[in-house]
């Protein structure tokens, strides 16, 4: 489950006179994930080291000048770029102390933004929609800039994205209540214009967020009525016709956020990954109408994953860099680390077994602050010790991640063991999932690397499920680690039928090797003899106990060879006979399938292979036996059917009206 960790203050704010402005114009990433450049709304640019919460250096323009665009960092040249008074582009390096002495160039048209991605080239977006690479612009600063936008069209938001080594500038505009999306590709330059579908009249998007994945650009936008839409644009199909025609942009409603009373005013939604959205300035669904909340929503399952109350005014601004959210609120700029592990339905709904811990029950019993409900005690600022521990967990996790990816097997085992031995393992569910998927991917990539005991330990925490690390079971099968397979079958609530069937196949194949020896020994069995060895039987039982849906399982079952099918049926027959004779199936170990489960499997296997079995001579006796079981079952059911009427009568008798202690009735005698 996604989690918001305890935040910390990066800097204080000097809000504008109107108090609607946070005083921060923009935040951009600097050289690494720990450095950011903060541009305030008036004159200064400050470089911060985030983990130290302190400014490293600061630059200011002269009195009377204003910065009109957030400063960006060009990592290729290690230079900062900013625009002052709309037309003056300033470029300087870290060691420059005075901004006035740095490089300046004046351009002929008003600049909207300068964008620069790490490793990319800075791009300049003009207010009238034209786009230039910074280098080419500086080569001739006074070059004419074309007007792309219409007369009353104005840019509302912009970003740039690198997709398949192609750079895109994306911006949205507004014209007479209509919103448009522009997709500008650089080298070769193409421009595509899209028209956003209209929401209710008078509503225009409050915030935008864009990301690139799977050859598609994904645009997320939030309306004041709380609707979060997503539009997906393929980067391949970008045609050449120069934005003359505004294509309609299909959209899908991702979330309908609760808005409380009235419309949202200052709110922002930011994509975190494919399934998670961070939203600020929207009320928490279970905490009244106050809008000063930061929440993470899962868009796949429409569930609230984490939430945090932000003290003071929310300005509707939100940035995210490398698993940290930057949010100005009240008079501070806070940094809130977050984590969005790969989500499964089970964990999104909080249904994984470990969720029902004592701690959670405790929180349920006292509901003074919803803050408590979401984070437990660790979110309470009145407990500094706990807070520190959580932060240290977070840092430790980073270190562990690093070691898991590189260290030798023994060290990984030691590290993970140390982690799992801690008491607060319940808080580490996201981490467990992360660790497991890292171990699995490393094992898959490196045939020499495999940590069966560590994986088994992770599975044992019951914080894992199949959808968190889908390759785990298959990896175990590949490495013939049947113990791990068994654990997974036992603890994962969501194993797909295909994987169940793969396990079954693998188990039967093993069974045949040793199972035949068993059969040789007993020539004329006086009582049913188990056709497979003991620990193979245990494995097969585990498969029988797994939850499944027969429509999905049936096609996979058809892949079994007839020889395997006969053996499996023999085993099922053995189980059936054993349990229908024995009063206490518990004798065979705690995890044994019920009679109904056995019958269901028999039916399914027969369904899948009936024609083949009819043709197989050695299956003849088996089929006759199974037929007799079915007959006895049918007889039982028909007998039950006979007494059904009587039982229903009993039911009717029960609803006889209660006479009570005293009543006056009328009877008639004839």
């Amino acid at each position: 489950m996604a989690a918001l960790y305890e935040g910390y203050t990066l800097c204080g704010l000097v809000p504008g006179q109107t108090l609607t402005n946070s005083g921060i114009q923009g935040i951009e990433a600097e050289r690494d994930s720990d450095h950011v450049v903060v541009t305030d709304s008036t004159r200064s640019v400050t470089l911060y080291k985030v983990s130290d919460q302190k400014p490293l250096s600061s630059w200011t323009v002269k009195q009377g000048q204003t910065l009109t665009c957030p400063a960006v960092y060009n990592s290729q040249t290690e230079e900062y770029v900013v625009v002052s008074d709309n037309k003056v582009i300033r470029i300087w390096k870290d060691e420059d102390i005075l901004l006035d002495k740095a490089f300046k160039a004046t351009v002929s048209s008003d600049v909207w933004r300068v964008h620069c991605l790490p490793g990319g080239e800075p791009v300049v977006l003009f207010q009238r929609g034209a786009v230039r690479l910074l280098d080419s612009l500086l080569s001739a600063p006074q070059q004419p800039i074309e007007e792309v936008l219409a007369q009353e069209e104005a840019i509302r938001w912009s970003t740039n994205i690198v997709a398949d080594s192609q750079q895109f500038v994306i911006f949205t505009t507004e014209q007479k209540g209509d919103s448009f999306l522009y997709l500008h590709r650089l080298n070769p330059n193409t421009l595509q214009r899209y028209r956003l579908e209209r929401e209710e009249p008078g509503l225009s998007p409050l915030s935008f967020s864009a990301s690139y994945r799977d050859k598609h650009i994904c645009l997320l936008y939030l309306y004041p009525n709380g609707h979060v839409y997503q539009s997906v644009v393929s980067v391949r199909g970008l045609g050449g016709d120069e934005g003359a025609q505004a294509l309609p942009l299909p959209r899908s409603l991702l979330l309908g956020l609760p808005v409380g009373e009235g419309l949202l005013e200052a709110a922002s939604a930011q994509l975190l990954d494919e399934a998670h959205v961070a939203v600020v300035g929207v009320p928490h669904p279970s905490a009244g109408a106050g809008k000063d909340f930061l929440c993470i929503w899962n868009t796949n399952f429409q569930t609230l994953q984490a939430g945090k109350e932000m003290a003071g005014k929310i300005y509707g601004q939100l940035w995210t860099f490398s698993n940290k959210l930057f949010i100005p609120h009240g008079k501070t700029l806070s940094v809130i680390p977050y984590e969005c592990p790969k989500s499964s339905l089970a964990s999104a709904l909080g249904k994984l077994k470990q969720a029902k811990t004592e701690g959670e029950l405790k929180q349920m019993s006292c509901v003074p602050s919803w803050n408590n409900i979401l984070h437990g005690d660790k979110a309470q600022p009145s407990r500094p010790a706990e807070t520190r521990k959580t932060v240290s967990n977070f840092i430790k996790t980073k270190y562990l991640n690093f070691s898991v990816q590189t260290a030798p097997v023994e060290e990984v085992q030691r590290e993970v063991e140390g982690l799992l031995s801690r008491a607060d393992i319940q808080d580490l569910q996201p981490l467990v999932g992360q660790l497991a998927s890292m171990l699995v991917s490393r094992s898959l990539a490196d045939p020499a690397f495999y940590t069966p005991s560590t994986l088994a330990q992770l599975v044992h925490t019951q914080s894992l499920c199949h959808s968190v690390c889908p390759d785990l079971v298959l990896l175990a099968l590949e490495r013939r680690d049947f113990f791990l397979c068994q654990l997974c079958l036992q603890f994962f609530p969501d194993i797909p039928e295909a994987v169940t069937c793969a396990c079954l196949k693998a188990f039967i194949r093993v069974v045949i090797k040793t199972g035949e020896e068993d059969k040789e020994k007993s020539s004329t069995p006086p009582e049913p003899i188990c056709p497979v060895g003991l620990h193979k039987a245990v494995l097969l039982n585990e498969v029988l106990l797994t939850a499944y849906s027969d429509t999905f399982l049936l096609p996979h079952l058809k892949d079994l060879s007839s020889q395997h099918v006969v053996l499996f049926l023999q085993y099922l027959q053995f189980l059936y006979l054993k349990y229908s004779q024995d009063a206490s199936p518990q004798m065979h170990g705690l995890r044994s399938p019920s009679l109904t489960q056995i019958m269901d499997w028999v039916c399914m296997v027969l369904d899948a292979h009936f024609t083949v079995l009819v043709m197989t001579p050695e299956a003849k006796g088996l089929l006759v036996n199974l037929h007799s079981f079915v007959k006895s079952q049918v007889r039982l059911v028909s007998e039950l059917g006979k007494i059904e009427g009587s039982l229903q009568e009993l039911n009717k008798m029960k609803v006889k009206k209660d006479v009570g202690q005293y009543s006056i009735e009328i009877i008639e005698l004839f």
Partner: protein
Amino acid sequence: MGEFKVHRVRFFDYMPSAIRAMAFNSHTERLALVRADGALEIFNFADHYFQEKVIPGQDGRAVEALCWVGQRLFSAGLNGEITEYDLENLRPRYTVEAYGGPIWTIGSNKQGTLLMVGCEDGTVKMFEILKERIQFQRNLERQKGRIVSLSWHPSGTLIAAGMMDMIRIFNAETGKEMQHDPESREVVVWSVAFLSDYTIISGDSAGKVQIWDGLTGTLVRTHLVTKWDVLCLSVSQDESSLIAGTSEGTVVQFQFISSTVDQQEEEWVRTRTFKNHSHDVRALAHTETAVVSGGMDTQLVVRPLLDKVEKNTQESAMRKIALPHRSLVCCAKKAGLLLFQFPDHLEVWRVGESDGHGEENTHTHTHTHTHTHYLILPSPSSSSLQVSKLPKDLCLGHQLCFSSDSTKLFASSRHSSVIVVALNQLECKYLHTLKPKSGESRLALFFSSSYFQLDKLSIVAIETTVTIYGSVCLQLHCTVPIYSSCPTAIAIHPTTSHLVVVHADQQIFEYSLVQKEYTEWSRKLQKQGLHSLWLERDTPVTHVTFSLKNPAHIILHDMFMFCIIDQSLPLPESKTLLYNQMTLRSLPEQERIRHSHAFKICKNFKHVMCVSLLEDHSLVVVERPLLDMMSQLPAPVRQKKFAT
């Protein structure tokens, strides 16, 4: 016949007490039974299992065991006393202190000369049975630990005593302990039976029925019967069958037969299990043909053994006696009052108005007497009764009755006499004692009074004899011809002054007090005979009353139905449908006349304790549902779950 408004009353919280012990006298076919509150009841098994006599209990008289010696009945209890009952006057005749602490068991030898009791202090005390009393004879050798159960060998020489953890055998003549059969630890031997072949059978708290050889003291066979206690045992007269009652409500039968066909040797084999009780079976009696059991769930169950009786007859039907065979409810017709009789207090309620379902019922008076059986019939005119000083002779009355003008009170007394007391506003004054003609000393059981011409009449029924006294002239008026079965309900018609008597064998007689002979209708009924279904009913009619509107209507009820007999209609032929109300309902009105007969039977109500007709022609039906009684019992040790 028309519509009746019925006041259906279910708030009479009558709760019988648990059955503690029973003893069956096979000569007289009487079953004596004591309940946890000390009340003694005598059932006449020869006369349709009718509850003939009831002696109310007394505080502190917790009876633990009963024993018949010939016609005499003895009991012993935890108060350490032995009591002999006066079954004529329905009271204890005398009590004797045994001086051995609480008494757990009592028994007599076959000859009926000696009585023995097992005491808490470990002694077995012998009493000689004299004609008028019993006299202490001697102690047997004193043991460590209480004597819980005793059984005398038929020869009278040996006594088996069940104790904590062991069974001891005494020589009855010398009183010396002969041998003992050690049991496992922590076991109470609740019951022992000494058979004539010197086999001892024991039932114990470990749930086992064990068969011992009484001569050698060796264990022959153990039958594990229950997970809980085996509380009581009873052996049939011919010693071929044995029954054991358990805490889980079952009765298990053992029979002395050869276990396989070709085997000659006979042994005790467990044969049948009866489950007729929800709670502990505390008392058992093995009669010639039936298993009689009773216990915590307060019901007396007579379960005929189907190998001893003819199948599918009335004799083979199981009987459960849950309610007393007497009316505990009295109804004042004019005032609409109900009087409920509890063992230690009375309750008076007023029936509600007919505006729908008024949960009305005012609780007017509660007269509290301790363990008495006064039955107060609210007198027709006086609305309240102030008892200030009662004459001394009235202190033991089993039945009370007011004259119809409320000036006289009649009370039954000892030796079948009736005491007449004059009543006025302030005091009551002894007037006269009506004595039966023959000097027989039997107690009045039924009692009624009515207005007849200028004379006031009262009736006394003495077991099977019904005697009529005139209450103004205070002389014997007449005696109704003796009938073999006990009368269960008696009433005098207020206008025609016909006497209606219903007997335990379900026969109905109507006797004219003027002509001093059976009425025409009664003769016709006897000639034609009652319908077979009527005779097959297994609960006695406990109350008879009349309709003020229509003198031809007689209203009577038993536990499962009430019946209005319309004397103007033809009697049902043996082939006609007796329970024909449903048929008549479906017929058109013109045809109903043709099909209707005198017995209008309504089976809408169950576990009826009283049916009476008020002056406004509405019926009062007092029900006591068995389920309500069951719900007041403590939880049983074991509850039957479906399919377990």
